[in-house]
C-alpha cells in the first residue's frame, strides 16, 4: 500500500542510529545542511505523524530532525522503558543532529514534556522551545507509559502486573487498514478518517493476518509510580531559553487538560503561552499551516 494524504511528504532521509545499544529511527525533512530543528512526537505516536507538519518547516529552510522514541515507530523494541531512558535516547539524537550546539525544538504532548525535562538536565542543547499541549498540569497525563502515575488503587496495580505477565507473548491486535484507523479514532476523535488511514500505512506493518501498529505490544496506557505530574510545573520556571507554549480549546482522550491558569504562574521569564481556538490535542495535525505559522513567527528565520 502506498499511503497518500494531501500535503503529506515522506521524509527526505530515514536511517537508524545507535543510542547506547538501542536502534533509534531518525526521520529528516529538508536540506541536509540547513539549520536543525528538532521535533519530538507524543507518546504512542511516531515521527511520521509529522508528515504534513514537518515539511512546512523544511520548505521554510529548516532541517527538521525527528525520531521515534524507543518502542515506537521504527525504533527498537527494548527490554525496558522509562522516562529516564527516553531522555537518554533524546540526548543521543540531539548529539547526532547538532553536536553540542543549541538548537530550537518543537515537542508535542509527551515530546514537549521530554524537551522541557531535557532542557533542565542539558540546557546547552536548546535555543528555543515550543511545546504543543505537552505542558504539565496537576492531572495525570494519558500518554506517558509505565511510571508517571500516582493512582494507587489496588486494582490498577494488579491489572498492570497481569499485563506484564502476558507481555512475553503479546502481539498487537491485527486488523484491516480501516479497523486500525477506527481504533486510533477512538483516541484521536477529531482527526480525519483519511489521515488515520494514512497513519496506518506509515505506522503499521502488514502480515498474512492483517495490519498491526508497530508500537511495542508491551507498552500500554496507564501505569503508576512515585512521580506526580504537579512536580514538573515549578521546574518550568527554570527554563533559560525563549519558550512558547500552545494549549488547545478542545479536550480529547489523549490530551493533558492543562489550562492557561495552570501554566502562567510557572512561566519562565519571557515565556509565552496561548490557547489555540478550534483545535484539540493534535493542533499540528488539525491545522498544520496555521500552527506552523504561529511557531515560525516565534522561531524566526532559520539560522
Amino acid at each position, binding site marked *: 500500500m502506498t499511503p497518500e494524504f494531501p500535503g503529506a511528504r515522506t521524509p527526505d532521509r530515514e536511517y537508524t542510529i545507535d*543510542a*547506547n*545499544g*538501542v536502534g533509534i529511527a531518525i526521520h529528516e525533512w529538508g536540506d541536509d545542511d540547513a539549520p536543525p530543528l528538532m521535533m519530538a512526537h507524543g507518546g504512542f505516536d511516531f515521527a511520521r505523524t509529522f508528515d504534513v507538519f514537518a515539511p512546512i518547516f523544511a520548505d521554510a529552510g529548516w532541517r527538521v530532525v525527528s525520531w521515534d522514541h*524507543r518502542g515506537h515507530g521504527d525504533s*527498537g*523494541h*527494548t*527490554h*525496558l*522503558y*522509562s522516562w*529516564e*531512558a527516553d*531522555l*537518554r*535516547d533524546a*540526548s543521543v539524537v540531539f548529539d547526532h543532529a547538532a553536536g553540542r550546539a543549541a538548537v530550537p525544538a518543537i515537542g508535542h504532548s509527551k515530546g514537549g514534556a521530554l524537551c522541557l525535562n*531535557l532542557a*533542565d*538536565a*542539558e540546557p546547552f542543547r536548546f535555543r528555543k522551545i515550543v511545546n504543543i499541549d505537552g505542558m504539565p498540569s496537576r492531572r495525570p497525563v494519558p500518554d506517558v507509559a*509505565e*511510571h508517571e502515575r*500516582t493512582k*494507587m488503587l*489496588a486494582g490498577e*496495580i*494488579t491489572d*498492570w*502486573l497481569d499485563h*506484564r*505477565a502476558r*507481555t*512475553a507473548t503479546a502481539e498487537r491486535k491485527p486488523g484491516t487498514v480501516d479497523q486500525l484507523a477506527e481504533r486510533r479514532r477512538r483516541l484521536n476523535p477529531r482527526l480525519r478518517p483519511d489521515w488515520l488511514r494514512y497513519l496506518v500505512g506509515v505506522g503499521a506493518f502488514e502480515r498474512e493476518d492483517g495490519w498491526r501498529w508497530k508500537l511495542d505490544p*508491551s507498552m500500554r496506557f496507564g*501505569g*503508576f*509510580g*512515585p*512521580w506526580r505530574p504537579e*512536580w*514538573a510545573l515549578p*521546574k518550568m520556571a*527554570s527554563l533559560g531559553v525563549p519558550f512558547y507554549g500552545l494549549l488547545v480549546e478542545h479536550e480529547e482522550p489523549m490530551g493533558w487538560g492543562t489550562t492557561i491558569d495552570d501554566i502562567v504562574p510557572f512561566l519562565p521569564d519571557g515565556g509565552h503561552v496561548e490557547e489555540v481556538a478550534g483545535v484539540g490535542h493534535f493542533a499540528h495535525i488539525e491545522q498544520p499551516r496555521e500552527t506552523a505559522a504561529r511557531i515560525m513567527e516565534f522561531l524566526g528565520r532559520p539560522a
Partner: protein
Amino acid sequence: MNAVSTVVLTHNKVELALHTLRAADGPNLLLLHGLGEASPTTVPRWAGCWTGAVHALDFTGHGSSTVPVGGGYTAEMLMADADMAIAHLGSATIVGRGLGAYIGLLIGGARADQVGGVVLADGPGISGGATTPTSQPVVTADAVDSTPDPYAIIELGRDLRPPDYATTFVRLANEGSDLPEPITVTAKFRPRWLRAVVDEPGVREAPSIADALSRYA
C-alpha cells in the same frame, strides 16, 4: 549447599533466574537481593529455621538474569519481576535486602493475598534517590555483557522514593493480607521512605531476620 535447581521465567523480553536453594514441602520463602548483588547460592544462616522451601530471584540485570540493552529500570518493573516469581511459586514469604526490601514492600502490597509477610532488611540500594524531583543529569554507561548491569545501579540507585508512596503499599498490604502485621522491618539504616513505613499500622520492628521469620513461619 548450592542451588538445587534454577528455573527461567520470562518477563517480557527478559529471562529471570529463579533459584531453589532448598527444596522442601511447606511454605515458600523468597529472597530478593540488594542492588548490584545476586541471589545467594546457599540458604543464608538466618533462614536456617525456615521449614519450607527457600528460593531466590535474580532481578533483571542481576545474577543470571538478562542484561537489558540501554537501561530503563524502574522499581515498579522489578516489582513485576518479583510478581513473576510469586506467580510461579503460588505464594511466598519474602525477605528483601536493600533494594530487594523496597521491591518486597511493593509486591507485598500489590499481591498481598499471595505474600505471607515481608521482611525489610539492610542491604545495598535501600536508600534509593531523592524524595522529590531534582535536576538529574542524563547518564550513560558502557555496555556490558555480564551482571550487574551498570544501568541498574545508576537508575535504581537514584529512583524517587517519596515516603507517602511507600506507605501506600503498606496500606495495600494491610487491606489484602490475613496477617495482623504483614510487614516487618529489621533494617538498621532507615531512609525517609522506610522511616515512614515503620510508623504505619501493621508494621512490626524485629531485632533480626530470623526473629522476623519466626512470626511468618
